């Protein structure tokens, strides 16, 4: 056995032993729930509702140990460690977590797409009566079918023609519809918000007076902004070679862009560290009960 494999085996055994020891003593990784019986008024139906309870509430009436949430907590913690293990290298634990993640997230997206897209958008508008009687009883009685929603139904079905061996070309029609819609809609929206309004915001006086005297700071700021915007635009020119007078202006533009990217980079670092801190807090607080135990 390789030295590294032996070392990992020892680490796993020690860690596993530690976890078993603490769990067997009830010192970590346990979830509690508060049990409530729900009996809505004017109804014969009743069910049990489980909501999260803290460790301090354990022992109170209606608070009990929850197998499903405890297993869930351990699954979450071990998956977290498995993903972090990728930093060392690809391994079987990461591969399993990755596979589960891909499958579960794909299934989740499809379930959400079905309920939010097909049921709540399409069927709710096409057949409000049927939906009111079955799945969405909150639909007001005065809602009537909106027959415009036949169009996305037809487009959706046409999309599925892709599965047919010779019907694939029909699927181009809904694609073309949405690409055209995207192109048209985004053209005006981007032109207005990202072109016109940006130009409007860039119109600044180069010489500013405040309280009757020359305000050199604001003037310098405005001049810098305008020079920055114009030089960056020169950098983005495609049909002109960056030679002659264009070269130094373009160079200045790329320096402004590098400052922009550096600023964006530096601004994000602390946020990313905070994300790591949040995951470590989950492991040390929610799972291992080593800090901030509630």
């Amino acid at each position, binding site marked *: 056995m390789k030295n590294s494999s032996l070392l990992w085996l020892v680490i796993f055994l020690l860690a596993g032993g530690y976890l078993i020891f603490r769990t067997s003593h009830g010192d970590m990784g346990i979830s509690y729930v508060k049990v409530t019986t729900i009996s809505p008024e004017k109804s014969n139906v009743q069910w049990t509702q489980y909501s999260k309870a803290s460790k301090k509430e354990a022992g109170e009436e209606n608070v009990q140990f929850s197998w499903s949430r405890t297993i869930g907590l351990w699954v979450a913690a071990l998956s977290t460690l498995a993903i972090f293990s990728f930093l060392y290298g690809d391994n079987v634990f990461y591969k399993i977590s990755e596979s589960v993640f891909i499958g579960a997230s794909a299934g989740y997206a499809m379930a959400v797409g*079905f309920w*939010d897209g097909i049921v709540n958008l399409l069927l709710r508008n096409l057949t409000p009566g049927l939906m009111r009687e079955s799945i969405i009883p909150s639909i007001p009685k005065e809602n009537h079918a909106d027959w415009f929603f036949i169009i996305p139904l037809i487009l*959706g079905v046409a999309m599925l023609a892709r599965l047919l061996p010779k019907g694939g070309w029909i699927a181009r029609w809904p694609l073309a519809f949405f690409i055209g819609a995207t192109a048209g809609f985004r053209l005006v929206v981007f032109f207005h918000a990202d072109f016109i309004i940006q130009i409007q915001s860039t119109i600044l006086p180069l010489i500013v007076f405040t309280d009757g005297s020359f305000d050199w700071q604001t003037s310098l700021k405005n001049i810098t902004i305008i020079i920055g915007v114009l030089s960056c635009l020169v950098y983005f020119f495609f049909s002109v070679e960056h030679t002659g007078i264009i070269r130094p202006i373009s160079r200045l533009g790329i320096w402004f862009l590098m400052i922009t990217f550096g600023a964006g980079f*530096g601004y994000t670092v602390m946020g990313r560290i905070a994300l790591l801190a949040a995951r470590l807090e989950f492991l040390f607080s929610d799972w291992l009960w080593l800090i901030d135990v509630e």
Partner: protein
Amino acid sequence: MKRTVPLIICSLTGFILIISWFLPAAESWGEKVTHWFDIVAAFAFVLGGANLLKIHLQKISNRRIGWGYSAVTLTAFLVTLLAGLFKINVNPSMNYPAYSWSGNYLDEGGLLWWIYEYLFVPLSATLFAMLAFYITSAAFRAFRAKNIEASILLFTAFLILLGRTYAGSLITSGLPDSLAFLRFENLTIIIMSVFNLAGSRAITIGIALGVVTTSLKLLLAVDRSYLGSD
């Protein structure tokens, strides 16, 4: 026919939506099309799901390397999908207890909720948290600044990082008021409100022009690569 009709559909739709933006009566058409897209995207899930099943089932049946992981993927996929579609273990809504399907698919206690809470969220958050390590390694690579541009990027990132921390304020707290603008926290403000603003604005303007041009090429059928062949 197989290309001509889609091209006509694309152009017509696009130009109608452009004109609709200027007409108050038709202004909301763009939003309506967005809702329609959500519906068609939901239909398209069938294509994605079918592809997912096909790829992984083929891998399992051919016993290719890693077929076990494909089995795990498919199991997770089917369990989650069924849990969501059939609202397994989801209680009815409090306001409509007689309707067993009235509960939200993500209500606490349901199977989909469990998968979301104990698999989806932790795995997403952990991958997100990995960025802390990757951003550090990216920064270390950038430390080997080979040219002026990389040096400017590095230096600015360093200034902004320090300016957003307590340590940065402490280092330059001794500067006199006449040089207060050189304090890290003030330098951060100057960089963000002047240089970063100028660069971001130019990038945004360029993107807008790029979007306009790309959109026009699509609507005028100059660019047809998305359509495929005849």
